[in-house]
């Protein structure tokens, strides 16, 4: 196993965290490198995948799932998160929906120097909305996903998980 593989975040680990936290519905719009996670989720009988056409719609759909008593998760890319500002405000924060946002952190680099404005503005965006977040780089960080779920439940607010491993962990 190469060093890159050792340091990666496995889609199985992410799926395990979703299962552990009782997720029933995945509101999602695929980002560039998550196809393996998609295939695993699709094969997981306890999950229903709800593909949206614009990320903001994931927030209203997730709010509906939660209203109806089930457990949604939102799986989108950081670009889509930024597109979703008003929906995040109105449907998630406004209705006190305890939902976890699993966000592909496009452009992120460990050393903080990036050439992608999507990464430049991601954390600033979350700060602006007062959304707490956890960075997940590899499997050793995966338990932070459960921390995010627990925090969402306690605070009745959205909590984000930034998946910084986008460009190798999910891309086999």
């Amino acid at each position, binding site marked *: 196993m190469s060093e890159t593989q050792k340091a990666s975040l496995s889609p199985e680990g992410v799926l395990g965290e979703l299962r552990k*936290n*009782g997720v*029933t*519905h995945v*509101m999602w719009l695929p980002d560039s490198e998550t196809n393996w996670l998609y295939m695993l989720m699709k094969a997981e009988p306890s999950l*229903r995948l*709800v*593909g*949206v*056409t*614009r990320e*903001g*719609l*994931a*927030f*209203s*759909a*997730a*709010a*509906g*799932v*939660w*209203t*109806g*008593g*089930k*457990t*949604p998760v939102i799986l989108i890319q950081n670009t889509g998160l930024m597109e979703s500002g*008003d*929906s995040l*405000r*109105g*449907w998630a924060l*406004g*209705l*006190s929906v*305890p*939902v*976890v946002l699993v966000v592909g952190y496009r452009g992120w680099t460990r050393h903080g120097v990036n050439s992608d404005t999507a990464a430049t503005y991601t954390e600033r965006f979350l700060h602006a909305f007062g959304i707490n977040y956890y960075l997940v780089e590899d499997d050793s960080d995966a338990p932070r996903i459960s921390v995010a*779920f627990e925090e*969402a*439940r306690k605070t009745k607010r959205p909590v984000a998980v930034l998946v910084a491993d986008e460009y190798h962990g999910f891309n086999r």
Partner: protein
Amino acid sequence: MMETAEVLKVFARHRGDAIVIPGRGGRHWTSISTRPSLDLPLGDPAMGGHASYALGVALAQPGRKVVVFDSEGDLLMGLGTLATIAEQQPGNLYHFLLDNGCYATTGGQPVPNAQNVAYDALARAAGYNRTHRFDNLESFAIELERILAASGPVFTWLKIVPDVENRPIKQRSKWQTRARDQVIADLQRELGINRGAKA
């Protein structure tokens, strides 16, 4: 063309134990409904999301009818939701569109191409099982029972008279009788949903 309140009064006779998301019809529905604990009069949390919200409720509560009164300006903000709903095929979702041709709450400016968009055709093309269009109350009243008896997702386009609001927002009368959190808590209690359950 129909009045929103009259449409909702006709619907009220057939709602049974459906969950109702009245959308921009909420200002009328709150005084018409006799089952407020099954209503979700949320006003406008963020424009463009009512149909997706209804989809979420319908997926989470597959054993119960879910009825949403969407509006055309709202739907136009997220037309892709038609494809998502059609893909999910929620048999319990009834999607009514209150189309007044304009942004009534901002002074009545027309929505883009207001007189020419065929919303029923859009829904049908996206993959809805059934679509309907009504511009008079009598026909709607005759057909409504059959519409609600069919398996969803069903899309029903209703041409309504604009109820244009021109006063500044702070001067408008508030029609909500419950806070949004309370509305949801009441529904969840009615449905036996434990809010202490996992997020």
